C-alpha cells in the first residue's frame, strides 16, 4: 500500500488484511483487464479530462457545499452539506458509472451489466449507458423490482433491460451474485459496472478513485468557506462509496472521519471477517459462515457487507463507524426537510441521524461538520409516507 492514508491497495488488492480478489478463475482475466485498463486510464490525462468534462457537462459537477445554517442553529454546530443530491440522477452514484462507462468504451466493450438494490445504481448505470450508447442489463432482486417498480420503469425508459433475480433473498446481495454469474458468460464484450467500493480488486479502489471527486471538490470548497479541515466528516455507508469518496479528500488531514451504518446492516459493528462477492471484508454472517440478510429501512444500505477499505480504516481507527436505527433516520429526514428545504435519501438520512443524536455528545458543541448529502429523497417519499401513516415496513 502507498503511504497516503487512502492510497493504492497492495499488489493483491488489499487494504491491510481486507480486499483481494476472490473470483472464479473464469473472471480473473477480466478483473486483470479492468485493473490494467484502469491504471492506464487513470494515468492518462485525456481520460481524466473526459471523465471530468462528462461529470461537469452532463453530471452537473461540481456539486455545491451548502452551509446548513438553520440545522446548525438547532444542533449548536456548524454544519455543511456536500450536495451529491444535486448530481444528475440524484446521487453520487453517477460519478462511478461515468468512470466505468468511459472505461468500458476504452476497453472496446459494448455492453455493461450492473446490480442494483433500490435502483439508484441501476438508474445511474442505465443513464451512463444511454449517454455513451452502450447496451445495458441490470440485475435486481425480485423483491426490489416490486418495491421499486418506478425505478425499474425508469431504467427501461433509459433503454436498459432489467432482470429480476429470483434466487436467495431476492434482494441486493443476490443481484450481485447473479450479475457475477452473468459476467462469467459474457466477459468478452461486457463490463460489470459494480456500484460501490466492493467486489474484487480493482473495484474497491477504482470506485473510490472515481468517487474521490467528491472529496477533492469538497476539500477545496471547505477551504474557500474558511474551514479547510472540518472537525468531522460524516457519511452514510452501504457498500461505502459515497463515504470513501468524501473521506478521500480529508483522510490525510486532522478531520475525524465517521461512517454511519444502518443498525440492521452494520457489518463493522456486528460483522466478522469473511469472503463474499470477490472480497475479504467484514460481513454479517451466522455461526456457520452463511451470509445473513441485512435489514434496513433503506434499500441502499441493505447490504450485509462493507467495502474492504472501510473495514481497514475501522481496524486502524482512522475512521469510526456507528449504527443508527430506523426511527432516528425518519426523524432526521423530516428535520432536514423542514429546516433546510432538502429532502435527503433515506440512506443519507442515516448520516444526519447520527449527527442529530451525537450533537453535544460525541460531537462537541461548536464543532464544524461536513456531511455528505449522498442523494435526494424523491425515490423514498412514498415509502416514508407509508411509514408515517403506519402502513410501512
Amino acid at each position, binding site marked *: 500500500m502507498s503511504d497516503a492514508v487512502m492510497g493504492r491497495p497492495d499488489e493483491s488488492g488489499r487494504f491491510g488484511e481486507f480486499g483481494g480478489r476472490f*473470483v472464479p478463475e473464469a473472471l480473473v482475466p477480466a478483473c486483470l483487464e479492468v485493473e490494467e485498463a484502469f491504471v492506464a486510464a487513470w494515468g492518462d490525462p485525456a481520460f481524466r479530462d473526459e471523465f471530468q468534462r462528462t461529470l461537469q457537462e452532463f453530471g452537473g459537477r461540481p456539486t455545491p457545499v451548502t452551509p446548513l445554517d438553520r440545522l446548525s442553529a438547532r444542533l449548536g454546530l456548524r454544519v455543511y452539506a456536500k450536495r451529491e443530491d444535486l448530481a444528475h440522477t440524484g446521487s453520487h452514484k453517477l460519478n462511478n458509472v461515468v468512470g466505468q462507462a468511459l472505461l468500458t468504451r476504452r476497453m472496446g466493450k459494448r455492453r455493461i451489466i450492473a446490480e442494483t438494490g433500490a435502483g439508484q445504481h441501476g438508474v445511474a448505470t442505465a443513464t451512463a449507458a444511454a449517454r455513451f450508447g452502450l447496451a445495458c442489463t441490470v440485475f435486481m432482486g425480485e423483491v426490489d423490482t416490486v418495491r421499486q417498480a418506478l425505478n425499474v420503469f425508469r431504467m427501461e425508459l433509459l433503454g436498459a433491460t432489467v432482470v429480476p433475480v429470483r434466487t436467495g433473498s431476492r434482494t441486493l446481495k443476490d443481484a450481485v451474485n447473479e450479475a457475477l454469474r452473468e459476467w*462469467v458468460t459474457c466477459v468478452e464484450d461486457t463490463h460489470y459496472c459494480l456500484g460501490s467500493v466492493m467486489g474484487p480488486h480493482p473495484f474497491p479502489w477504482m470506485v473510490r478513485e472515481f468517487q474521490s471527486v467528491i472529496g477533492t471538490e469538497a476539500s477545496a470548497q471547505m477551504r474557500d468557506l474558511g474551514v479547510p479541515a472540518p472537525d468531522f466528516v460524516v457519511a452514510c455507508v452501504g457498500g461505502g462509496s459515497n463515504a470513501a469518496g468524501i473521506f478521500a479528500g480529508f483522510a490525510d488531514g486532522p478531520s475525524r472521519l465517521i461512517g454511519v451504518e444502518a443498525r440492521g446492516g452494520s457489518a463493522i459493528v456486528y460483522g466478522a471477517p469473511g469472503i463474499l*462477492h470477490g472480497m475479504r471484508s467484514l460481513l454479517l454472517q451466522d455461526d456457520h459462515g452463511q451470509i445473513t440478510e441485512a435489514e434496513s429501512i433503506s434499500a441502499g444500505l441493505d447490504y450485509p457487507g462493507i467495502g474492504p477499505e472501510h473495514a481497514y480504516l475501522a481496524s486502524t481507527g482512522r475512521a469510526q463507524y456507528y449504527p443508527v436505527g430506523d426511527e432516528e433516520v425518519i426523524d432526521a429526514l423530516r428535520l432536514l426537510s423542514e429546516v433546510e428545504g432538502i429532502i435527503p435519501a433515506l440512506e443519507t438520512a442515516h448520516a444526519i441521524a447520527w449527527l442529530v443524536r451525537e450533537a453535544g455528545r460525541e460531537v462537541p458543541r461548536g464543532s464544524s461538520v461536513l456531511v455528505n448529502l449522498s442523494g435526494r429523497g424523491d425515490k423514498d417519499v412514498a415509502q416514508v409516507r407509508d411509514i408515517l401513516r403506519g402502513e410501512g415496513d
Partner: protein
Amino acid sequence: MTELERRLRALRDQRRAFVPYLMGGMSPRWLDHLEALVAAGADALEVGLPFSDPMMDGPVIQEAALRALAAGTTIETVATGIAERHLPVPVVVMTYYNVVHHLGLERAASLLSEAGALGTILPDVPLEEIGPWKDASAGPGLATVLLIAPSTPPARVARVAGASEGFVYAAARMAVTGHAEGTGDAQRVVRAIRAVTDTPTYVGIGISTPAHAAATAEWCDGVIVGSALVERVLESDDPAALEHAARPFRAALD
C-alpha cells in the same frame, strides 16, 4: 504428491473417471444418494457444502444449496456424514471460501480430512488467493483442486495447472454450473493444460448427458457431472432413481 492425485493417476491407467457431484444435506437421504452413485460406478465423488451465496452455481445447484441450508446442513454435519459411511471412492469437497474461512482454515482442513475427504475445490478462490488454504491443507494432506477456464490465458494455464493438486478442473465453458449444449471450449482448454502438466485433467460444467460425457472423455481423463444428477435428486428422493440416472454416464465412459 497428494493421496488424491496418487489415486486418480492410478485410475487413469484403467478408465476415464466418472465424478458425479452432489450437494451434502440436500435431501435427508443424501448419504444414500452418494452410495447410489458409487453403486452406479462413480470413481470419485464431489460433495458440496452449501453456501448462501454460491456465485459459481446455476439454478439447480442453488436450489440444492437452499434445501441443504434449510435442513440445517453445516460443514460439521457433512463431515460427520461422510465419515460415517466410509465411502470406497475418493471424496472431494466443493464449497465457497467463506464456509471454511469462518470456521478457521486449519480447523476446516482437519475436519474434512478426518472425515475422509481427500481434496477440496473452492471455486471463488483463484491461484493468487489460494496460498493460505493450501498451507492449511498441506498438513492433513488434503489436495487443493484448481480450475482453469476458457478465458485463462496460456501463461496462466501453466501456473494454475502446476499448482493444482489431485486433478486439474477444466471448465468446459464460460458459464456457471448447469445444463448446456455442445462441448464448449473444453477441448482447447484441456489441450492447453496437457501441454504443461500430466496431472489428471477432468472436464466439468455443463456436462449433462451420457453422450456428451462420452464425447468429452475422448480427449480428457474424466468428467464431472453435477446439475444433471442433482436435478434427479431434487425431483425424487429415491436413491435407486439416482443410480438409474447415473449408470448411463458410467457406461458411456467405458
